[in-house]
Structures are given as structure tokens and as C-alpha cells.
């Protein structure tokens, strides 16, 4: 899929989590993904982590204390993916 990591992530969120009532363009890059923002739950987080691994080849660890910050928004997740990709290059 073409586009920035942020755009790809938004499509991934809609497709992987089967959010029928939300379009990728409706997701605000800086908005929180969980609870008060997009309203995702912790099971969504798990599914999203698997989808991110499949799509971008980067993996988050279950016991990583930075996970909360990483999964806060599309922007924070995109920053994490960029950093991981640079590290593996």
C-alpha cells in the first residue's frame, strides 16, 4: 500500500479491526486510539499489534513499559514504526 506510514496505519486500523462505521480519513493522527478517542479496547490493541507486525515487520513486546505511549495515537505508533525500521536498516 502506498502513502505515509500514518495513512497506511489508518487503513490498517479500519481493516484489521473491522471498524465498519469509521473511514480511514476520519481518524485524526494525534487523537488517542483508546477509550476517549477512537474508542478502541485492549483486545483491539492486541489485534492491532499483530496487524502492525504483519504489515510493517516490527514487533512490540507484551511487557514493554513504553507500549502505552506507543499505542496512544496513530502518530505515536507511526513514530515507533519509523524508529524500529531505521534501527533494523
Amino acid at each position, binding site marked *: 500500500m502506498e502513502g505515509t506510514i500514518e495513512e497506511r496505519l489508518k487503513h490498517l486500523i479500519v481493516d484489521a479491526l*473491522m471498524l465498519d462505521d469509521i473511514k480511514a480519513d476520519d481518524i485524526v493522527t494525534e487523537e488517542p486510539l*483508546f477509550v476517549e478517542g477512537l*474508542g478502541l*479496547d*485492549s*483486545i*483491539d*490493541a*492486541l489485534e492491532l*499489534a499483530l496487524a502492525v507486525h504483519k504489515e510493517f515487520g516490527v514487533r*512490540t*513486546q*507484551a*511487557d*514493554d*513499559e513504553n*507500549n*502505552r505511549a506507543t*499505542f496512544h495515537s496513530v502518530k505515536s505508533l507511526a513514530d515507533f514504526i519509523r524508529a524500529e525500521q531505521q534501527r533494523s536498516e
Partner: protein
Amino acid sequence: MNERPETGTPSASGLPNQRYEGGPTYRRAARSVVAVLSVTAYTLLGPFGYLLFALLYALPTRRPHRRARFLQAIFHRAFAFMHHWLRWARIMRYDPRKLRGALPDGPCIIIANHPSLTDTTAIIGTFGGMVTMVKPAIFRSWMLKPVLKASGQFEGPSSDPLDMQRIIAEGRSRLDAGFKLLIFPEGTRSPEGGLHRFGRTAFTLACQADLPVVPLVIRYRPVFLSKRCRMLWPPARLPELNIAVLDAVEPTRYQHDSREMRDAVLATYHQHLAPLQA
């Protein structure tokens, strides 16, 4: 989804459901004094109970599940006794002796709305024999952790979104061992008279393990021990707790889709709690 008869004493007042309400100060103060005395008695006697638990925990066993069931039975009796005391002391009205055995045999996932701190004790005091997720701060307490762990309870999710992987694994292992698992799908106490959005943990577990979800609807009039109404300043009118057991929901009905299952069950809760939300 049918509602079976409620547990607890039926409302004598016939008043519509009400949210937290005040009342004459002297009645609230009297109830407050009884609450203080109860907390004092608990504080003085509690350590002996914990000591007994600790001794039972220290006994070596080759069958940890059997010991867990034994400890769960003690929790059941202790919480039932606590509710008899609370009813006798006129702090709240709930009789856990009603409707025992209304849950299906064998493992299942029990869910409930969570208006008050007494929900867990009321459910376990009524039905017994179940495990639940315990708030990390409580689970990690040096005094409680051994007993909670030995009785099959496990630590609730941390703030890490991916911690859910552990929760699912822990929940699955308890269900595979034949335990009933109690989950409050809102993840926190309900807003008074209402509901938070349900998480999917209970429904994901049900779909994965192909086990039914049994919804319990808790009504509290007026609400006591909510986030607003504290133990030491109870409402003037005697708080009355009722638990209704709804029909078990099978994941096959929703083709094992945890989202659909969650949405359907949440809609049912909204229907049953509509009078409280009015």
C-alpha cells in the same frame, strides 16, 4: 433475553429506581456510626482470617486446583456472612441465599455491571466457586497475593494495552481448569444509573473457549459504595441490591464474533437498566 427472578429482598417501597439520594442527616449519621463500627470490627478481626488463609495456603498440596476450590469456598462463605452482617446491621439490604445454583454447571464467563464495590462480594457470596481478575494494586499486596493466587484469582490488566495477551492466557487457563470466571466488562465501576462501554475480554474468551457468557444485571437503589457514595457516609434510605441472572449467551449465536456478541449483550444491559437511566 429472559430475566429470571431477582436475588435479594424485593423492593418494599415500590419506588422507581433512583440514583444516589440524600435524606435526613440524623439517619445518615446513624448508619454512618454502624458503618464505622463494622469497619472497626473488620479491621480487628480481619488479620485472624488472613492468618487462617495463610496457614491453608502454606499447606503443601499436589492438587492446586482442589486447594483453589477449597479457598474459593471459604471466600464464598466469608462474603455471604459479610452480606448477612450488612443486612443485619441495616447498612445495606441483600440476601445472598436466594437463587443459588442459577448459573450453568461447569465453566462459563460471568459478566456484570459494576455500580458498587459490593458487587464482587455479593456475586461470590451468592454463587461461590469462581475466579476473577483482581486490581493490580490489591493483587500485589504482600498480605493478599498468596491467598488470591492460591485461590486461582489473577492480576488484572496493567496500563499496558498489550498486557491483554497475559489476561487472555490466564483466563483461558482458569476456564480450561473448569473454573467459572467473573469479569466486569466495563473495567471500572459503572457511572451511577448507567453503563460504560463494554470491553471485549469476556467475549473474546467466550468465543475462543466456546463457552457461554452469563450476564448478571445488578441494580442498586440508592447506590452505595459507588465512586461518589463512600462507606462511612451511606445514604439515608437503606440501599437495596438486586441481582438478576439473564439467560446464558452462546458464542455460536454470533458465529464466534466477539464484537457482535459484545454489542448484543451491551444492548440487552441497556434495555434492562433503562429505568435506572431515565
